Structure formats: C-alpha cells, structure tokens
C-alpha cells in the first residue's frame, strides 16, 4: 500500500501545532494532548486511511494489469504494467456513447436543478409566506420515499404522457433529466437557503432601494455573493445524477443507456474483463471525484451554516 503508507508517514512526521486564532472551533485546548490521545489518533487514522484507500488502490493497480493477471490469484503489485485496458474499454462495449449520455443527462439535470433551486431558496430565505414550513418539510420528506415505490408509477406516467402528447419521456434523455433534477432538488434548496441566509440582507435591500426588482436583486447581488455555494451545489447535483442506477435501468433503452447501467456490460460477456472494468470505473470516476474534492470546502461551509442555525 504505497499511497496509504505515504499519507501515514507524512502525518507521523508532522509535529503538533495548535491552530491558534484561525476562527472559532479550530483546535481544542491550550495544552498539548497526552500521548494516549496522540497514539489513538495515529492508529485509528492509519486504519481508516487503509480502509478508504485499499479499494482505490485495487482499482488503479488492477486497471494496469493484463487480463490473465486479474483472473488468477490477486497480486498486490502489477507486473507487467500495461495500459491496454484503457484502450480496450472503448471497444468492448460502447463506452463512448454511455459516457456521452451520462454527460448530457447529468449536466442538464444539474443545471436545471440549481436554476429551479435558486428561485425556491431565494423565496424561502427572503420572504415570509404562508405554507413555508409545509413546503420545506415536504421537500425534505421526499428524501424518505423508497425509490422503488415511485419508479414504476413514474414509468407508467411517462409512458402515458408520451402516448397522449407525443412527447417521448420514457426511453429518452429528457425523462431521465426531469427525474434526476428532482432527486438533487431537496438538498439543493436546503443548501442554497443556508448559503443565501449567510448573504447579508442589507445587500439586497440596498439594491431594492436603488430600484432593482427582486429578480434583479437576486441576480445582481445574492447570486454573485453565494457563487461558491452555487457551484458546490451544482457539482453535488451532477454527482447525484451521475451515480443513479435504479431509474437509469428502468427508463433508458439501448441508445440512451447511461454509464450507471452500461458498466455492467463488461461482465455479461463470456469472460469477465476485470482489468477493463477497473479501468472504466476509474475513467467514469475521475470527473466526479475531481469536482467533489474541489468543492468539499464549500460543502463544509454550507453544512456548517446549516448546522449552526
């Protein structure tokens, strides 16, 4: 486990420093913690690092092995190394098409979800209105529904709408986009509300006094001030759509199939191409992992303001 050891060594080498004067809640006491605490920390964090990273290491190392090395006993170090899996993945199954479908669906769903959530969050954070509590509760309650309960009715509704109006929702990317955008909507509204609350009201009130309408105040003042949060929520919405499986398997057909379903194709062949599966897993993970790690800071900030309230 070279990567795990690396992180562990870096941590062990570091002398303890108290994060002084960097805002509230950072750092705990004035005294250095006792050895019992330091040792607990080293051991527990090393174990958790191994737990978190071993699967990632397995993915990366197996993707660099030739096929015969992933079908026999597991070996820690890939030898010989080959990049052929990264070439082959595009031809064993139509990965390019799945990738494009996922990209279209997830991007549209994320953009639409955030656009809708911005207005809803603006209403919740800036206006008092009747039914506000019911709305926020109902939106969060949708998180509770088992997906399986509305997968079939939604499927039937989409088919009926298609038959009645000729708008193809079933089997099309459009249907999947609408479905996915509502999946990330509750969380997006909740997070954006807490971001908007952190924008001082005086700012948009000043804009209103200057003659802006509420919509212009939202676009000129509130959105620019909450932009990091909006980006974080967009990435989250993208990830939600990118990783969803149940509706992708019910609502798509051969031409609109997304990665979430398409990756299974590698193992329905006579041979299970584990090296290609691992290479493909890595390729489909890179966009979301990169996005998530870039925005984690903002996500914590949004959760914090939500938690403090």
């Amino acid at each position, binding site marked *: 486990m070279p990567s795990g050891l690396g992180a562990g060594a870096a941590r062990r080498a570091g002398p303890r420093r108290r994060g002084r004067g960097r*805002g509230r809640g950072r750092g705990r006491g004035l005294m250095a913690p006792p050895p019992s605490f330091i040792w607990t920390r080293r051991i527990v964090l090393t174990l958790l690092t191994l737990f978190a990273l071993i699967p990632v290491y397995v993915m990366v190392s197996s993707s660099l092995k030739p096929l015969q090395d992933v079908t026999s*006993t597991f070996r820690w170090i890939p030898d010989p190394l080959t990049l052929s899996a990264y070439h082959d993945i595009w031809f064993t199954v139509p990965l390019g098409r799945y990738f494009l479908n996922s990209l279209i669906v997830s991007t549209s769903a994320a953009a639409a979800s955030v656009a809708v959530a911005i207005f809803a969050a603006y209403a919740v954070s800036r206006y008092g209105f009747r039914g506000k509590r019911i709305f926020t509760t109902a939106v969060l309650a949708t998180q509770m529904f088992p997906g399986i*309960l509305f997968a079939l009715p939604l499927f039937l509704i989409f088919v009926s709408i298609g038959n009645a109006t000729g708008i193809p929702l079933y089997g099309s990317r459009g249907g999947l986009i609408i479905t996915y955008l509502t999946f990330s909507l509750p969380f997006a509204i909740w997070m954006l509300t807490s971001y908007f609350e952190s924008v001082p009201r005086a700012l948009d009130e000043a804009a209103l006094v200057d003659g802006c309408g509420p919509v212009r105040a939202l676009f000129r003042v509130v959105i620019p001030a909450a932009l990091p949060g909006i980006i974080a929520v967009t990435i989250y919405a993208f990830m939600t759509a990118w990783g969803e499986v149940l509706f992708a398997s019910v609502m798509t057909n051969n031409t609109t199939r997304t990665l979430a379903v398409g990756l299974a194709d590698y193992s329905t062949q006579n041979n299970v191409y584990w090296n290609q599966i691992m290479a493909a897993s890595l390729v489909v993970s890179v966009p979301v992992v990169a996005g998530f790690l870039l925005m984690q800071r903002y996500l914590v900030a949004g959760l914090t303001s939500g938690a403090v309230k």
Partner: protein
Amino acid sequence: MTVSLRRDAPRSRSGRLLQRIRKGGLPYLFLLPALLLELLVHFVPMIFGILISFKQLTLFFIRNWTGAPWAGLGNYRLVVDVHGAIGSALLHSFVVTCAFTVLAVGLSWLFGTVAAILTQDSFRGRGALRTIFLTPFALPVYASVIIWAFMFQYNNGLVNELLHNVLGITSRPSFWLIGHNSFFALVIISIWRNWPFAFLCVMAGLQGIPRDLYEASAIDGAGIWQQIRRITMPSLRAVNQVLVLVLFLWTFNDFTTPFVLFGASAPSPADVVSIHIYNASFINWNFGEGSAMSVLMLIFLLLVTAVYLLGTSRRRNNA
C-alpha cells in the same frame, strides 16, 4: 420594491391591490417550478403507487394499467400473511434489512465521528487525510460497488488473498457474494460508502463549537478525553439528530448497492427489502404486490421517523 411601491402610490386603489397580490404572490411564483417538479416526479407517482397497491396489476394489464381489476386489500393480505410463502419471504427480508441498517448506520456514524474528532486539531497532513477520507463518498456508487465486487471474488479477489494467504485468519478461501457472508459484504460496502458523509457532517458540526468552551475547560483542568466527552459530544447532538436519520433512510432504502453487487435477485441472507420489492415487481411482474410492499415500508419509515424525531427532540429540550 420600496421605490416602485412609492411610484405606484398615487394610482388607484385597485392598482395598489394588484401590487399587493404581486408582492404576496411573488414567493409562490419563485417556488412554483420546484413545486411542480416535485409533484410530477414524487408526489403524484406516490399516489399512483398507493392506488396500484390496491389493484391486481400484473404483466397482463401493463399496457392498459388503469383497466386492471381492483383487488381491495388482497395484495396487503397476501404480503403480511407470514405463514404464506410471499409473506414469510417479506418478513425475512424485512428482518435482514433492519439488521443491515442498524449495523451499517451504527458503524458509519462511529467511524465518521471518530475520524472527525481526531482531525479536529490541525496537524500536518490533516488536509490530505480529509481528502482521502472523502474519496469513497465522491466515487459514483456503482463504481465503488463494482470495485468491492472484484475484491470479494473467490479466486482472484483481494479479501480472500488478505484473510487467507497473508494473515492466515481463515483456513480456506470463503465465498463472499453467496451464502451467509454476502450479508457482511453488503454491510462493509455500505459502511465504506457512507462513513465519509458522517465524517463531513460531524466535521461541519465541530466548527460550530466555540473555542472558548475548550479554553475555559482547559483552565479548569479538563483533559482532552474529558473535553471530548463533556463538550464535543453534547455539542454534536443537533448534527447527530439529522445525520443519523438521513443515514438511516438512505441505508434502509438503498437499492444501488445490493443491485450492482448481486443483480436482480440477492442471496437470501442479504435479500434486503428494496431488492426484494424490485424482484417482485420487475422480475415476477406483479406490480400490485410490489406496490403493497413498498407502501408498508413507507408507513414503517414514517412511523420510525416520527417516533425518532419526537424522542430526540424531547431529549434535546430536556438537556
């Protein structure tokens, strides 16, 4: 708004009324798109789902599903009859799901909380550790389950290599994706996937604790373990209330993990409810029964959530 109101002031009374409606209606206008979409994708299908649970909707009627005959409480009677084949299978699946949820949520919460508390102070490498800990949560679920499925393979998996060949814990390689072990495979994957979320939430919660509290207690002579017990844990109560509930709902309803790991039919020891219902609906093509099962699960989740929120809120108020 103020300015435009003033501009309209000299106008007629009806103009002012219109203005007031516009102002009062504005938040609703902003909410409308969100509301419509939630209705279309969540609430209306749910109501249809409840209707279907009272119908005999089999493959035969799928083309004309509104024409399927009513079954009354027939579907419900069938799925709660614990002496019948369908009912006993559902009960088994429900018990499996409860055990799975309790184990996975408990350990995910524990790992996340411990990690967040241990990384509360800054030390060199803390930022890197955070990134590492969050990586499992950032990976697409299906990709992580596929990786774990590979690790759990009998012949060429890492888990058997580690337990059998390296550590020598097991006397012979074990099957992980069939038989009793499949339950633990499911639990482990679920924990791996969800503990970073607990870590993230607790980390956010920790930042809300004022530093003065720790400083004051340190002056009073409290050690770090005491601080954790007396200050950190009580301060996290609000975060934990939401966190545990969200983890519970996610884990209980989790479909992706068992579906990607086992396919449409899971081995009996790991036959969680979501996959069981999928099987009844889309493999056996009996949507009425499947819907009745889903409705029962929804009622169960509503009850647990209500009791949980009442219980934890009261305790928080008393504290």
